[in-house]
Structure formats: structure tokens, C-alpha cells
């Protein structure tokens, strides 16, 4: 009975859509590639939204299609935006120019171009994970990735995040930020100074919560409790922002269905 009811509803919806398309109120999926694509995207959107009711075959189809297409999408993007210009273009510029990017051989060659055999070799080693034997060699590539990440991030986070955040905090406490500095207006303001002092105290309080070498008791305990409140405010604001972002995406999808597909708005 339930199945018949659902099929009936689906038939009515299809009939309405067919009538609207026939009357020219909607894009005809058989008229142009854009029309077909819009219909496909709309049905895919509805298929994924159907998961809100329950897990169903239509949703699973959309989910599996998305997995396959997105895997290939990132692979193709990686090939054309990184491998071709940065690897093949550096190692074999004239061949790359002939096969992939015509203008690449005109650029002056990097004097250290031979270094690019390193990622080529390690990239091949990484692919050995798919081979039945010699999979352990892919760890060498993993080791290079980790070494590179550690070496680059260690300095980058120390200078940009650690020192940078402290510098940016202390720069503004005087209620005056020189115009040459980021966010600087060059105008003194008591209100600004008040909020900057509040900001510094809040940062210190939040940091004190993460300091575990001293027991959180007495004045220090009370101060670290203020730190928890600051962190809760941050998480609350983050949560509110995330929900707003998701709702904006949802509004975008509904707008696509009503405006681009159904043409009812």
C-alpha cells in the first residue's frame, strides 16, 4: 500500500514536470546539453536530499556516483595542474610543450631541474603500494612527505602562527596601530584600547587553561576557568558560523531547484 502511494506521488510529480516542460516553463532536457545537465543536477540534488527521509537506492546511486566522479576529478586536477607543469615540464620541457602545454618550453629552465627526479622516483615508489610485492618501498615516499612537512611546518608555524599571533596581539594593546601594520588605522582610540586589553586578558586566560604544569587551584584556577568561558564563546561562535554556512549552502541548493530548474521564482 505504502509503495503504491509513493509511486502515485512520483507519477503525479513527473506528470507536472512533463507538462511544465512541454509548455516551455522549464528547460527541456532533450533540447540542449545545458538542459540535460540542469535536469541531471536537480535530480542528483533531490536524490541526495532523499536521505533525510531514509537510506534508499536512489541516494546510494547518487552517493556512489559522487565518490567515483570526485576521485577522478581530483586525480585529473592533480595531473593537469601539478604533474604536467611542475614535474614533466621541469624534466622534459620540449616534450611537455609538444604533448601538453605549448608555451612551457619558452620559459627559462630551472638551474636545479635535475632535483625533480626526486619526486618522480618517490612518486613511483608510492605507487608500489598497489603492487603485490615491494609495498614497503612506499614508506620511503611517505617518509619524504613527512620529512618535508615537518621541516617546512616547524618553521612556518613557529614564525607565522606562534610569533605572529603574539606580535599581532601586542601590537594593538596601546590603542594605536601604525598604518604600516596589518589592520592599522593610525588613529588612537580609548574604546579600541579597552577591547584590546580585554582581548589580551582573554588570550592569557585561554592559554592558562592549556597549562598543565601547575595545578588549576586558587587564583590560577579561577583565571583558567575564565579561559574555559573564552573557549566556550569561541566554540559557540564557531558552531553558529558553521550552521550558518551549511544553511547558506542549503539555501543555494533550494534556489537552484526553484530558480534554475523549476523556474518558479
Amino acid at each position, binding site marked *: 500500500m505504502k509503495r503504491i502511494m509513493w509511486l502515485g506521488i512520483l507519477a503525479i510529480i513527473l506528470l507536472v514536470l512533463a507538462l511544465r516542460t512541454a509548455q516551455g516553463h522549464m528547460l527541456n532536457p532533450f533540447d540542449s546539453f545545458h538542459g540535460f545537465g540542469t535536469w541531471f543536477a536537480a535530480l542528483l540534488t533531490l536524490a541526495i536530499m532523499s536521505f533525510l527521509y531514509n537510506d534508499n537506492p536512489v541516494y546510494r546511486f547518487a552517493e556512489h556516483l559522487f565518490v567515483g566522479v570526485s576521485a577522478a576529478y581530483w586525480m585529473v586536477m592533480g595531473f593537469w595542474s601539478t*604533474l604536467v607543469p611542475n614535474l614533466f615540464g621541469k624534466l622534459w620541457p620540449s616534450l611537455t610543450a609538444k604533448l601538453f602545454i605549448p608555451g612551457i618550453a619558452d620559459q627559462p629552465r630551472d638551474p*636545479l631541474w635535475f632535483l625533480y627526479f626526486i619526486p618522480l622516483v618517490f612518486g613511483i615508489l608510492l605507487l608500489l603500494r598497489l603492487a603485490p610485492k615491494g609495498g614497503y618501498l612506499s614508506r620511503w615516499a611517505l617518509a619524504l612527505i613527512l620529512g618535508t612537512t615537518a621541516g617546512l611546518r616547524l618553521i612556518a608555524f613557529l614564525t607565522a602562527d606562534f610569533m605572529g*599571533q603574539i606580535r599581532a596581539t601586542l601590537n594593538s594593546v596601546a590603542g594605536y596601530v601604525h598604518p604600516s601594520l596589518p589592520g592599522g588605522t593610525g588613529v588612537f582610540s580609548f574604546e579600541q584600547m579597552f577591547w584590546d586589553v580585554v582581548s589580551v586578558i582573554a588570550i592569557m586566560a585561554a592559554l592558562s587553561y592549556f597549562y598543565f604544569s601547575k595545578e588549576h587551584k586558587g587564583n590560577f584556577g579561577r583565571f583558567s576557568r575564565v579561559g574555559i*568561558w573564552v573557549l566556550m564563546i569561541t566554540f559557540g561562535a564557531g*558552531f*553558529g558560523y558553521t550552521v550558518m554556512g551549511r544553511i547558506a549552502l542549503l539555501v543555494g541548493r533550494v534556489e537552484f531547484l526553484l530558480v534554475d530548474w523549476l523556474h518558479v521564482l
Partner: protein
Amino acid sequence: MKRTIPLLITGVVGTVLVVAYFIPHPPFDSLREDFSIFFDIIASVAFILGGGNLIRMHGSRISRKESNWPYSVVTVLGFLLTLFVGLTKLGNPNGFLGSSVTTSGSYFYAAYEYIFRPAAATMFALLAFYVASASFRAFRAKNAEATILLLVAFIVLIGRTFVGELLTSWLPDSLHFLTIPYLVEKIMVVLNFAGNRAIMIGIALGIVSTSLKVIIGIDRSYLGSG
């Protein structure tokens, strides 16, 4: 051999890149940039590895006719077709060598525009419902901390809509500091920023110590147990 060489590679590469930061002379000055590109190249190869794994996993499901195997056919077909039109730049209006793979009008662009983008946006949009339902079940103003979190989330949510502006628009100028848009601004710019800064300082210290552990060879978890 299986563990020593990877440890050596990590240690040497990590140390050289840290030292290179302090030597602004050739060839060290460009070494950090070069290795950053190497990282991108190997990450792109990792996408190929991911694709290979996807085919292997779904291929075995299809060949064994495991439960729900027809969905694996959809994944494999979607993957192979997108890969084919992307690598061959099929349908590109300016030909294979003429323009980028993402040029409007190509079949790869169509796969992005009519499949990847709507599906990704809808998947993330669904999270709005799940976040709302999960927070309805989990959030309870049991203590001061939970109440602050709830209150701030509520103020930020309504403060970013026209309702937030309307609710407190009747307040006189002398009570401007109580209006929701003002509260939202101060929450976001002062307190949220302060909390984020503290977290970022903590993250930076954590990354520095983890990086040192990896370079020195104390942290070997990436080598696995084999």
C-alpha cells in the same frame, strides 16, 4: 632496511629544510620552495594511488558479486568516464592543446558543473539538518560553560540575519552596546578572536614539538608495525 631508510629520509630532509631557512644563499634559498613543490607532486601521485585503490576495491566487489555490487559499477563507471574526459580534454572548445581542462564547454567541466558541484554542495547542506538535530539532542544548559556556548551560538545565529537587527533596533543610542549586531561584532572580533588565537598558539606549539619528534625519529608511528 624497512625502517632505517625511511627514518633516515625523514631526518635528513627535515633537518636540511630547517637549516635551509637560516641560509639565504643558493642553493638553500630555493630549497624550501622546491621541496614544497615536491610535496605537491607526491600528493598528486597519491591521488593516482587513491584512484587505483578505488578501482581495486570496487573491482573486487563487482567480481565477487558482493551485496550491493551494482552500486560499485556506478562508482567505477563514474570514475573511469570522468578520468577519460579529463585526461583527453574531450569536448574542449579549443582542442587538446588549446586551453585548460576546466574550460567551460568541455565534458570535464560538465562533470564538475552538473555532478561534482551539486552533489558536494548538497552533501554539505545536509549537515545543516544533522547539526541542528544533534545539537537539539546534545545541547543542554546544564552548567555555566554550556550556557555560554548556547547563548553565544544563538546570538551569532540570529545576529547574522535581519531578525537580529530588528529585535534590538528600538534601543536608544545610549544603549547601543546592547544591540545584537554590536554584541555579535564584539563576540566575533574580540572574544572569538582571542580564543582562536590561544588555540592557534597551542596548535603551533604542538606542531613544532611533533615535527621535532618526527625529524629526530622519536615518533615512528607513520612506519606502522610491519
